[in-house]
């Protein structure tokens, strides 16, 4: 059983909704990245989503774009991200880590080389935003190495295609709550509850919902019908500009604590 599968099994056994924070690797401070990851776990993260910075993040809004630009300006690349995961693993053998990003950095690194190094570092899954199911053949070396492929599903996904995604899903299926980019602010939970319920009934994996969740209230609304919630933009925004490890940990705790409490109270 993979680390991700084990984590979701534990959540289910204890009837808890998973909390999946997203941060851009290398932002706000590359030198404190490992400490930042531990702080996420201390604040109640069940899975960590680590954004691999990319120069042209087409599916992201301005907050995550700028975080990527800051990290790239500091020289952060895939090699650093893998090193941080390996260092994180030295103290945390249980919390799953998913790398989220775009295809080009992985393609240039080399699929087979990436697969081997990522598994060795302790990465559990990858979500490559611009690699839909139709193009996923290039990711075979990743699957062969045991990295789980996290797939996106969207409000625009047609029913027949949704069935394919439900069948192909590994780890968890990431449902994008609205058609748009990360960080846009129009979450309407009413419309998505039925769709997520339907997906949960058919998917081989748990379903996480992301995009538009930014605080305890919106997280709680989603918790009613999802296995996990993903929070990215609001957290990245909160961390921007922090320079020392204590400040980073304090901001994370302050931001995630009410969300964790809201999920657990559900």
């Amino acid at each position, binding site marked *: 059983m993979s680390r991700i599968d084990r984590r979701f099994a534990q959540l289910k056994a204890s009837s808890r909704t998973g909390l999946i924070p997203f941060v851009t690797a290398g932002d706000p401070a590359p030198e404190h990245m490992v400490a930042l990851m531990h702080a996420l776990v201390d604040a109640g993260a069940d899975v960590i989503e680590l954004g691999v*910075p*990319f*120069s*042209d*993040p*087409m*599916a992201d*809004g*301005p907050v995550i*774009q*700028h975080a990527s*630009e800051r990290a*790239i300006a500091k020289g952060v*690349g*895939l*090699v650093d991200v893998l090193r941080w995961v390996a260092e994180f693993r030295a103290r945390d053998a249980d919390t799953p880590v998913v790398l989220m990003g*775009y*295809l*080009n*950095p*992985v*393609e*240039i*690194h080399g699929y087979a080389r990436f697969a081997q190094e990522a598994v060795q570092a302790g990465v559990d899954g990858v979500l490559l*935003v*611009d*690699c*839909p199911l*139709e*193009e996923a053949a290039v990711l075979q070396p990743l699957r062969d190495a045991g990295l789980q492929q996290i*797939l*996106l*599903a*969207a*409000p*625009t*996904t*047609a029913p027949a*295609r949704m069935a394919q*995604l439900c069948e192909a899903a590994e780890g968890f299926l990431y449902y*994008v709550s609205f*058609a*748009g*980019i990360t960080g*846009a602010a129009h979450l309407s939970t009413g419309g998505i509850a039925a769709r997520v319920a339907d997906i949960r009934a058919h998917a081989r994996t748990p379903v996480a919902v992301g995009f538009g969740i930014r605080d305890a209230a919106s997280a709680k609304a989603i918790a009613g019908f999802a296995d996990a919630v993903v929070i990215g933009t609001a957290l990245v925004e909160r961390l921007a500009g922090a320079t020392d490890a204590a400040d980073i940990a304090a901001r994370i705790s302050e931001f995630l604590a009410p969300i964790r409490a809201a999920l657990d109270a559900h």
Partner: protein
Amino acid sequence: MSKIADFNAYPDVHGRFGDYGGSYVAETLMAPLAELTEAYLRLREDPEFIAELDRDLKHYVGRPSPIYHAERLSQHVGGARILFKREDLNHTGAHKINNTVGQALVAKRMGKPRIIAETGAGQHGVASATVAARLGLKCVVYMGAVDIERQKINVYRMKLLGAEVVPVTSGSKTLKDALNEAMRDWVTNVADTFYIIGTVAGPHPYPLMVRDFNAVVGREARAQMLEQYGRLPDVLTACVGGGSNAIGLFHAFLNDPDVRMVGAEAAGEGIASGHHAASLLAGRPGVLHGNRTYVLCDDNGQITETHSVSAGLDYPGVGPEHAFLKDAGRAEYLGITDDEALEAFHLLARTEGILAALESSHAVAQAIKLAREYPKDGLVLCNLSGRGDKDVHTIAALEGVEV
């Protein structure tokens, strides 16, 4: 020579040209792309649609564009005859209108009231604003803040045509960032918005659709050559940024093995300087803007900033069909520096009375080099893809002249 039997067989149903092309986009866009592919594949076989497009190309764009023998330029160079396919004479002054007229008709048939576009030099933005005005569609154009500065005239033209021009300040603030931003708009407004991509890049079906709409250039040229010269040209040349005017000229000749094809990439300050936009010459296969193609990027996979004196060539990727033609050995891609393009611009102006766009001046420079390789009865056909009025301020600034 190339081993490909029939170039018309590409792309395949997944939009792949061999290893290149495809649909590398987020899940949210897969449904709208499928909807567009379905609509476009139906329309491209629809006699009514084809007739409407042909009418527009004739009466609104002003097609066919002539083939012009540049005698004084050819004499000056002292080699083969240099011929120009005069896309600069089209309405709005470039080949870009061929594509926007076509895509706007697709938008209309699909019932989309709002169109968006990205633009580098502003030619595609102007061509999009133009067709939007004509069809009564709302038009939003994304343009890098750097490009807005160097193409002020085109920005104002778009505004006169009723379009909203949105400055893009992320990344390098040029064409690639404008494309990212247009993609973000599209993913957010898919229900009522049609995205008119201006070049043969992006996810399937764009490289196919934009190529089809520009292929009229090569179809006309092929017939005109047979009619006026009784034979096909020895060599074709065109500038390559994203590559739509080059594919437009090349495509009808791909299955003519004796016709050589040379794409002129922007070598900027020289390939060795690192300040250029020559994706095919100096890039490597990667994934950008929805397709696999040659891209300029560093070892971390980050797309690198490009440089060219011409905003329209300042792009770190290239259409996937060009990547395919390069690997297949069917087309060659060479570099023209800023200085060579500027020199060709002036030479053409003084010998032929034609101000070419800076983009097209790269093709002119390449045509001059090629003409020297062939005997006097040789025929070099160059796509003069756009006129240079928009660049007058840029050239004046480079020469320290106040206009």
